[in-house]
């Protein structure tokens, strides 16, 4: 099938009637998997909307992919490569660390960027040119604390991945909110990145006797935790963040995944039109489906990535310009409700999408099912 | 009570490796200006005795005095090989240990490092030019005297074997020793080369006022140049004295030399 791609030769962004949009995602490294999913959604978005109109002229959009390898040193050069290629704006990426590393280069080059699923506050903080389509870590922590407390868990254990800003941020806000609500975190366990043996901490948790565990880790660790917990006979309510919301978890962890609760930016069914279109596009090409791990299930990362692309296009059209500062201003002023997977968008002073709802889903009998919508008043 | 003339005084030296007693209660004296030979069957402990003297091993028992200063004993393990070299004992090795990839000149120049007045800072920022200059000049001087100057740019490893032995001795001389210890300098040399070596050793002894301690299996060389011989077997001294006396000692013949008939056979 035809895939959209760019040629690396053209240096001028608006050469002829094409412009370039940079895709800043990890294709390799620890987050390579997540990056691939987001790319897929961006590719779809590009398929849905292959052009923008500026100054009455229609420009074809070329996607310029650069792999940041989930590595901060590489992220800098990947960002520079995008800048050198003359992209109009950047979409991406998965994982906050790389975005933070690259962020200042975009702002120096006056190129607006829209974060997809980088949930750390520092991505947009103090950076005028970085925007973000998803919500922030503290919000998720609060949501999950609410859910846990209101579902009768007053004592929980937490599992933190040291060095992972996402996990640690969530654990911290969860702990704070949960304590304020009146619950106690009985046992807070930690592990290091790349660890794959969790029996020691799981045994500790088992020993502490809690009924629920909050483990907002990267997806990588989810099946490991669940399966090892099963082997140890640890039977608890697993609560996690958006990263666990993935059909692969059901594949990887099988029955052990039953009961897991996670929140997400987007839950399938939230926007039937988007779901249908994306699924159709996915199913049209076996290689796309393969990249999506052979399912046509839609996760939050798909939705926010799609939205990020759309937001950028909208801003370009709103600004009616290909100049970075103008697009940035248009993004800052943007207040749109139509055409996105995750509902209306508006950015706050930091450039973060103002979102106050999160969808909570649970795996029941081998399928993610929508549970409730949690809203937090800021 | 050190005799003024005694340069090296070994007392009851013992060196044990696990169950093996390589050197067993060995005592010896080396007087200034002498060439003293250490002979004995293979594995008798000659090289080990050298290693104790030069600080490579720390003896299990006994002590070694050099010019009145104790350089090795069983409790004090503070003298490392480099300190001993600094005190004035230089050595060569049974298996040649040059720096084979470096030039002949650099091989000798390295021996000057120890005595140059410098520290890493001055050396890095070239604040010790005169010192460096002097080291280089002295090295040239020595190479010329040893007839090695035409090889100065060669890689040491590519020298003919005999030259390598000679270079190793030159390098040892460059450290400015009072006592020179040679471990089988003639090993792997043919009789003619061995004769040349004998002459060479006598020459440098006179020229640099050296005392020489020598291990060797070539009896022609040993008998020809030594003033005094110690013979050891199983780490124990079995004979000592003037060459002729040792050569005719029945214990030495039995353990080491073999009878005349055997040699002629």
């Amino acid at each position: 099938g035809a895939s959209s791609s760019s040629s690396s030769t053209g240096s001028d962004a608006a050469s002829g009637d094409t412009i370039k949009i940079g895709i800043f995602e990890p294709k390799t490294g620890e987050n390579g998997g997540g990056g691939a999913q987001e790319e897929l959604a961006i590719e779809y978005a590009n398929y849905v909307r292959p052009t923008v109109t500026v100054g009455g002229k229609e420009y074809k959009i070329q996607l310029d992919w650069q792999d940041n390898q989930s590595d901060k040193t590489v992220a800098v050069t990947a960002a520079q490569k995008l800048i050198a290629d003359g992209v109009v704006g950047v979409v991406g990426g998965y994982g906050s660390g790389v975005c933070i590393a690259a962020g200042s280069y975009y702002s120096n080059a006056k190129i607006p960027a829209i974060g997809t699923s980088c949930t750390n506050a520092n991505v947009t903080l103090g950076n005028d040119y970085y925007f973000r389509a998803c919500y922030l870590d503290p919000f998720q922590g609060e949501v999950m604390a609410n859910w846990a407390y209101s579902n009768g868990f007053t004592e929980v254990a937490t599992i933190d991945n040291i060095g992972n800003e996402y996990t640690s941020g969530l654990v911290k806000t969860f702990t704070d909110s949960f304590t304020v609500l009146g619950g106690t975190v009985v046992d807070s366990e930690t592990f290091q990145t790349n660890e794959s043996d969790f029996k020691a901490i799981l045994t500790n948790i088992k020993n502490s006797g809690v009924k629920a565990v909050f483990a907002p880790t990267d997806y990588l660790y989810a099946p490991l935790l669940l399966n090892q917990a099963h082997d140890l006979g640890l039977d608890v309510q697993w609560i996690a963040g958006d990263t666990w919301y993935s059909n692969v978890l059901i594949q990887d962890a099988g029955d052990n995944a039953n009961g897991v609760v996670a929140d997400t930016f987007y839950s399938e069914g939230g926007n039937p039109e988007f779901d249908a279109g994306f699924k159709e596009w996915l199913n049209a090409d076996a290689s796309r489906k393969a990249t999506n791990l052979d399912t046509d299930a839609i996760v939050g990362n798909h939705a926010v990535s799609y939205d990020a692309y759309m937001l950028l296009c909208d801003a370009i059209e709103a600004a009616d310009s290909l100049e970075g500062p103008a697009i940035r201003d248009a993004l800052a002023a943007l207040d749109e409700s139509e055409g996105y997977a995750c509902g209306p968008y508006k950015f706050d002073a930091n450039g973060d999408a103002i979102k106050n709802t999160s969808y909570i889903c649970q795996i029941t009998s081998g399928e993610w099912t929508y549970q409730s919508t949690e809203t937090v008043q800021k | 009570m050190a005799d003024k003339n005694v340069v090296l005084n070994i007392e009851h030296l013992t060196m044990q490796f696990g169950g093996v007693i390589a050197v067993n209660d060995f005592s010896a004296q080396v007087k200034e200006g002498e060439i003293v030979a250490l002979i004995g069957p293979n594995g008798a402990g000659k090289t080990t005795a050298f290693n104790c003297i030069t600080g490579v091993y720390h003896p299990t028992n006994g002590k070694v005095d050099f010019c009145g200063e104790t350089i090795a004993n069983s409790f004090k393990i503070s003298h490392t090989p480099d300190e001993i070299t600094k005190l004035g004992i230089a050595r060569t090795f049974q298996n040649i240990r040059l720096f084979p990839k470096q030039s002949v000149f650099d091989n000798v120049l390295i021996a000057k490092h120890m005595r140059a007045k410098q520290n890493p800072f001055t050396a890095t920022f070239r604040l010790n030019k005169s010192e460096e200059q002097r080291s280089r000049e002295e090295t040239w001087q020595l190479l010329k005297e040893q007839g090695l100057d035409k090889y100065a740019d060669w890689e040491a490893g590519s020298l003919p074997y005999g030259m390598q032995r000679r270079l190793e001795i030159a390098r040892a001389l460059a450290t400015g020793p009072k006592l020179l210890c040679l471990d089988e300098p003639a090993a792997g040399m043919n009789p003619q080369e061995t004769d040349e070596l004998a002459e060479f050793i006598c020459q440098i002894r006179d020229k640099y006022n050296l005392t020489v301690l020598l291990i060797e299996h070539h009896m022609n060389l040993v008998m020809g140049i030594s003033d005094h011989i110690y013979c050891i077997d199983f780490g124990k001294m079995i004979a000592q004295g003037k060459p002729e006396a040792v050569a005719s000692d029945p214990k030495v013949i039995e353990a080491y030399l073999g009878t005349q008939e055997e040699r002629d056979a």
Partner: protein
Amino acid sequence: MISYLLQQLLNGLSLGGAYALIAIGYTMVYGILRMINFAHGDEFMMAGYFMIFSLAVFPWYFAIPFVILCTIVLGVVIERIAYKPLRSAPRMSVMISAIGISYLLQNLANYLFTAMPQSYPQIDILKHVYTFGNISVSRVTIIAPVLTIVLTFLLIMLVNHTKLGMAMRACSKDQETARIMGIKVDNIITTTFVIGCGLAAVGSILYFTDRNTVQPYSGSLPGLKCFVAAVIGGIGNIQGAVIGGFIVGICQIVITAMGYSVFSDAFTFALLVLILIFRPSGLFGEKAVQKV
């Protein structure tokens, strides 16, 4: 409390068993080539992928030998391509070649199988969970240490009491002289890789069955730890590698259980450094005395 301790001990033993099997591979290759086979951890990772694919086709009793075979072939091919041409090259080049192969395997896995973790198939007979009161163990937890000890015993018999073992020991000391004895040194080295990779494959089955997912970098951290284990035990020494493996496994569990997971790797290394300071060639390593 007792059951808690017992459970943690079991965790440590099973982890240690898998580590030990991998550590043997390091030790054997080092013993014979004086070279750290940095790619060993990645061969182990590849074994994980092989299992995923073969179990999709075969029943487990075919899949397991098949995986072992594939890993062995991989190891032998690597040896032939990347190490054999460098027999007379400086040691450092061989080491870099090993690092290069390790890069290559990781990147290849990344390219072929994507960076997304793939779920490791469940081998039901290994996953059966036993429950004794408060303690739960899966069968693999028990099998790992037992199998390790049995295999080690067989291996030691092989090395010390067979002609092949004699030739292996000869090659590890002096390849040239071994050649003069009529030993086909290359074949012996290949055999060593066969054994090392076979054990890595078994280790990988035990390890991944317990951990359920494989991704391109799954091999690097266990690889490093097993290497540490081999050094702690005295590299080149099979018994040492096994004991080292158990020490590293148990320490890791203990430190993590105590809540210092930040320091679990650091502790392993600190232990290593401490052991090396007092025993510069590991616990059971041959003393490297330089005869002057």
